[in-house]
């Protein structure tokens, strides 16, 4: 079992169209770095200098990591991580 990561539509280009990918348990930032190796470019879209970008939220199950330990929040096998960027379209 691994950590399931939900990829938002705007980033699915980087995951060959996959809406869900798998990563290793550990901290959020290590998970992102780990995913960036498999899907180059993903890390940069979500984080900068080891910190999460302020217009992209990451949830572990339903909880926003900003209100836990942020980048250092631990995720374990079976957890579901969602990457949710701000979108503004109303057009």
């Amino acid at each position, binding site marked *: 079992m691994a950590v399931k990561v939900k990829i938002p539509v705007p980033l699915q280009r980087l995951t060959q169209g996959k809406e869900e990918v798998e990563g290793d348990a550990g901290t959020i930032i290590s998970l992102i770095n780990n995913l960036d190796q498999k899907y180059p470019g993903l890390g940069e879209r979500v984080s900068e200098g080891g910190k999460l970008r302020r*217009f992209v*939220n990451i949830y572990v199950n339903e909880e*926003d990591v900003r209100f836990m330990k942020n980048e250092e929040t631990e995720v374990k096998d079976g957890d579901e991580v969602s990457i949710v960027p701000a979108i*503004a*379209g*109303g057009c």
Partner: protein
Amino acid sequence: MDFTEEQLKRYSRHIILPEVGGKGQKKISEAKVLLVGAGGLGCPVGYYLAAAGVGTIAMVDDDKVELSNLQRQIAHSVKTLDVHKADSAKQTFEALNPDVNVIPIKERLNSKNILDLFKDYDIIVDGTDNFPTRYLINDACVMLKKPLVSGAILRFEGQVTTIMPHDGPCYRCLFEEAPPAGLVPSCQEAGVLGVLPGVIGALQATEVLKLIIGKGTPLKGRLLIYDALGVNFRKVKIPKNDECAMCGKNPTITELKDSPEEYCSI
């Protein structure tokens, strides 16, 4: 106000619902809702609110109808090409339901006009296409303590949340800041499935009606994410952020500001 025979018939499927009834329908007919944007989201939201009999619906949009809008903006038609979207929507909604007073506001929202435009309305609906306006609307709603039903769409994905200022998180609690210009593409650049605003707009209209009749649980403190391709509806929690620049313990934003123009190209 008492309902006419015709109105009793028109709203009979509402009135028969115990959660709505004559009382709820009266609240609906007395409600004043302001929609920002008469585009992809504004069209279905306004259309359903008009059908439901919402007494006053303001549509704020300074754009005119273009052919490329008609793939999704269902209040407009080839007959209203080049017409102001707010006027086109007024024609459509009033044709559906003459009980409804649609007020077209052909202006762009800015820090100077927004409070004055919002102050007479009960509920604000966000269906805009850019981040600066989203933050401006949020800040104005927090200042005026107006409920805000926010919806956003891009490609195959939509987001909805209901903001009850000072009684839950605001948009800045959710996303602390807008992405830099150019990082998140617009619908114009990235495309949008035509029916997607219909789904998200219908959810927004539902939230508005629930707030008006005071029934059910508002989508407060939760972000609903819809992924059309995977047919997933997910909800994540939006905690109220004590550090929020707008509604936190020590707010740093105390007046409305217009963002630099280049942001608007997002």
